């Protein structure tokens, strides 16, 4: 079975600084996607960034980028120029290309300090 681990229950960052959230996963499959989702107090899961496993190039979305290390099964999220609105729970998630469900990690609570 696939598993996703986030070893940092809580992180904090100063506004305008950079922070990296860690994620590792375990799978025997080769075709899959990895995701970072943000869950603010509104509770809705919001997609931050997505990475296809077959792509070697790391995904970027504005201030958000990932460091995808397929051999190490590591998928970290870097948030640059942190903003107060970035404060939320962040979940790393895995999805096999031929499966229907996400496998989520336990989450990291990010606080942004003014």
């Amino acid at each position, binding site marked *: 079975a696939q598993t*996703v681990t986030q070893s940092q229950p809580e992180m904090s960052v100063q506004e305008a600084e950079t922070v990296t959230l860690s994620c590792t996963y375990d799978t025997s499959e080769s075709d899959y*996607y990895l995701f970072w*989702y943000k869950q603010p107090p*509104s*509770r*809705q*899961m*919001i*997609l931050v960034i*997505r990475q296809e496993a077959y792509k070697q190039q790391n995904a970027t979305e504005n201030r958000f980028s990932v460091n995808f290390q397929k051999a190490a099964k590591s998928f970290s999220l870097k948030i640059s120029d942190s903003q107060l609105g970035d404060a939320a729970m962040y*979940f790393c*998630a895995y*999805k096999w290309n031929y*499966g*229907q*469900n*996400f*496998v*989520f*990690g*336990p*989450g990291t609570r990010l606080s942004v300090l003014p």
Partner: protein
Amino acid sequence: DAGVTQSPTHLIKTRGQQVTLRCSPKSGHDTVSWYQQALGQGPQFIFQYYEEEERQRGNFPDRFSGHQFPNYSSELNVNALLLGDSALYLCASSFAGLSGYTFGSGTRLTVV
């Protein structure tokens, strides 16, 4: 363009009761997945409905059942509620189960 709508937003039930949660998918989406998110944890997959059939199921007991209607909306039913069923229940929709999932804001269920 409406996103995923879930109702109710909150409810409180007593142990042993039954509950029905509802989800309307995003316009253009035909697949609905349900997740249970216990306090302080990541969401856990319950099941997915596509073409009014349960397509895949997670590791949840038969007390959890669902239904999808011809308009693609879905219901999650939980029978014989336990205290441990207290959680946020999230609905996610997509087109044919492909990537591009949209999540709702969930229903917070408290069992007392």
